[in-house]
């Protein structure tokens, strides 16, 4: 226990707080740009030429990646000292890296918005080591180098903490995931002239992140929160974690093949990709079973009911978004028609929200009351507001997903299916989908309302929570 904040086991865990706060600010930005794009789908020249669609999209996706990275780092700074049972190796380095990363992130986003993309490339001397111009990896080379430096410092910091402290399965899995994240990011510097080869290795960053190492990070964050809020034996949790990781790696790594269908890679990938990625729902299903059985067999009634809700919610939403919606179009004969349609967008939205946005919010929900000195949980009113935020965001995202799925199906029928030349071109198809896109925009506003509820739930000042301490569940 430390004196400054009696609710933290180690004082250095406090460095997680700025990471979480900044992550949520970026999340708000991401949602705002999502709404701008949603409007541009139906009013094509909205905000043109100030923010063209392609720039809004770039900002929307880049903000997502960066805020999740901030969330993962904050989670690691909070979780690793507690698991290792010692203070963080260097809290000062963690704070320094926070400012470096935040400044680089903000400058990059401003660069996207204020300078034409080609100008940004010239300004940052992309020609010295060309890495720009690829979806999700649009960052100027200098930003990419900055990310590498931040990651190295971060890994050094938590690695040293782990080496000197207790090594638990949860923290080792987290570390493995984070090292994997850093290693696979290095492929973003490999930019071969051949477009097929470029795409091939591009997926090593994109796919092996979200369907590989990020699942390890998610698994360990989930395990950490579940140990804390349910009081279930660590041994049981660790076994579940092993199963989840094994399944995630078997299906995820070979499942990369489902991205190699139509990019000029050999035909064998049609088989490998279809078969192995068909099982990618399994690790997510295991996570659902894990979370629900832990909560059911809990040894204590944790006062933070919002965190429990997030922990259960993230597994279910991830199972549907990543698992079921991914499976919908992962088989090669299906993907032949659905590739790059609104179905992909539907899957992307529910998967990213369910798996990664929600797991970060799960950890924030658990850790934030402690980081803010409120105790184990925020007061009842704040929690009610947070639960409202949970349902508004989750249900809005489900609506967005269903509407985009419907749009995708219609799009396939109008634009892809007909073989007699009657198929519509892309823009005419999009015109036909207007109604669905309007409804999607309304759902997006609902999501923003949910996010605002969630953010408002942090308004409670640092007064002690008026709650009885955790009590043991009578058996």
């Amino acid at each position, binding site marked *: 226990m430390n004196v400054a904040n009696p609710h933290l086991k180690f004082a250095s865990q406090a460095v997680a707080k700025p990471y979480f706060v900044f992550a949520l600010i970026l999340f708000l930005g991401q949602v705002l740009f999502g709404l701008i794009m949603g409007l541009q789908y139906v009013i094509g020249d909205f905000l043109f030429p100030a923010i063209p669609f392609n720039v809004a999209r770039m900002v929307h996706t880049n903000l997502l990646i960066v805020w999740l990275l901030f969330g993962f780092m904050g989670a690691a700074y909070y979780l690793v000292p507690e698991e290792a049972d010692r203070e963080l190796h260097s809290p000062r380095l963690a704070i320094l890296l926070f400012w470096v990363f935040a400044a680089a992130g903000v400058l990059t986003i401003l660069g996207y918005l204020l300078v034409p993309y080609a100008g940004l490339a010239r300004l940052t001397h992309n020609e010295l080591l060309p890495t720009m111009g690829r979806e999700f990896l649009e960052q100027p080379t200098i930003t990419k180098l900055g990310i590498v430096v931040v990651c190295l410092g971060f890994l050094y910091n938590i690695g040293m903490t782990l080496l000197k402290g207790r090594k638990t399965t949860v923290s080792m899995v987290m570390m493995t995931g984070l090292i994997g994240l850093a290693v696979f990011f290095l492929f973003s510097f490999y930019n071969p002239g051949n477009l097929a080869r470029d795409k091939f290795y591009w997926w090593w960053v994109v796919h092996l992140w979200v369907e590989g190492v990020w699942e390890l990070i998610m698994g360990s964050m989930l395990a950490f929160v579940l140990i804390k809020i349910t009081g279930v034996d660590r041994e049981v949790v660790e*076994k579940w974690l092993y*199963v989840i990781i*094994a399944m995630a790696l078997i*299906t995820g790594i070979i499942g990369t093949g489902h991205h190699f269908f139509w990019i000029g890679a050999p035909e*064998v990938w049609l*088989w490998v990709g279809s*078969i192995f990625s068909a*099982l990618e729902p*399994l690790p997510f299903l*295991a996570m659902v079973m894990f979370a629900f059985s832990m909560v059911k067999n809990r040894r204590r009634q944790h006062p933070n009911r919002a965190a429990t809700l997030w922990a259960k919610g993230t597994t279910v939403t991830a199972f549907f978004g990543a698992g079921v919606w991914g499976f919908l179009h992962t088989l090669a004969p299906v993907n032949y028609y659905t590739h790059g349609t609104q179905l992909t967008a539907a899957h992307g939205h529910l998967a990213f929200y369910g798996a990664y946005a929600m797991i970060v919010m799960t950890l924030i929900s658990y850790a934030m009351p402690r980081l803010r000195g409120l105790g184990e949980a925020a007061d009842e009113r704040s929690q009610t507001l947070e639960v409202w935020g949970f349902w508004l965001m989750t249900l809005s995202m489900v609506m967005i997903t269903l509407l985009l799925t419907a749009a995708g199906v219609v799009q396939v029928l109008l634009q892809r299916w007909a073989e007699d030349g009657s198929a519509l071109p892309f823009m005419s198809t999009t015109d036909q989908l207007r109604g669905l896109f309007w409804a999607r925009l309304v759902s997006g506003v609902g999501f923003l309302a949910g996010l605002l509820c969630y953010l408002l739930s942090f308004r409670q000042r640092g007064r002690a929570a008026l709650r009885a301490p955790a009590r043991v569940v009578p058996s």
Partner: protein
Amino acid sequence: MSTSLEPMPRQLPGDLAMWLFILAELSVFAILILAFAVTRQLKPQLFATSRALLDSSTGLAMTLSLLSAGLLAALAQVQVRKHRSRRAAVLLLAALLVASVYVALKLGEYRHLLGAGLGIEHNTFFTLYWILTGFHFLHVLLGMLILAWLAQMAWRRSLGPGTCSGFESGVLYWHMVDLVWVLLFPLVYLLG
């Protein structure tokens, strides 16, 4: 009486986590096997002519090698439950030796096929042949690694009925590899 050394009735040997993992593996192989069967039904001619290029005479030897290694591993488990850890280690070494016959035969077959230009890109049959048997081959290698690790563990530590859950799990993994092979072999080499 050996009955007292048998596991308690209605209890899973090994670890529940290993069983869940085995279930996941069996699902992967089920999909692979079904994909093979369905494609064979769609292209019977191609499959018949391509299969004729495979040499099934070594099939029996490969099957026996895997199954005998399975027997030796199961016997090793019996020894562990009788507190005879060292004997178990020796039996596992024997299992490894027997299993390496399979590895040698399979590598020979792969070299022969590659020499004849029948690689993974040759046609649909060979694409599936290489994915299916190659994936299984990797599992055999992993299984052998696990058996080797169990052997050294049994040699250095004295395991007994109460401390052999990890040992049982490792042996179970090997049996899973056997289980998949007995269905895979007739499908790929014989049927149709």
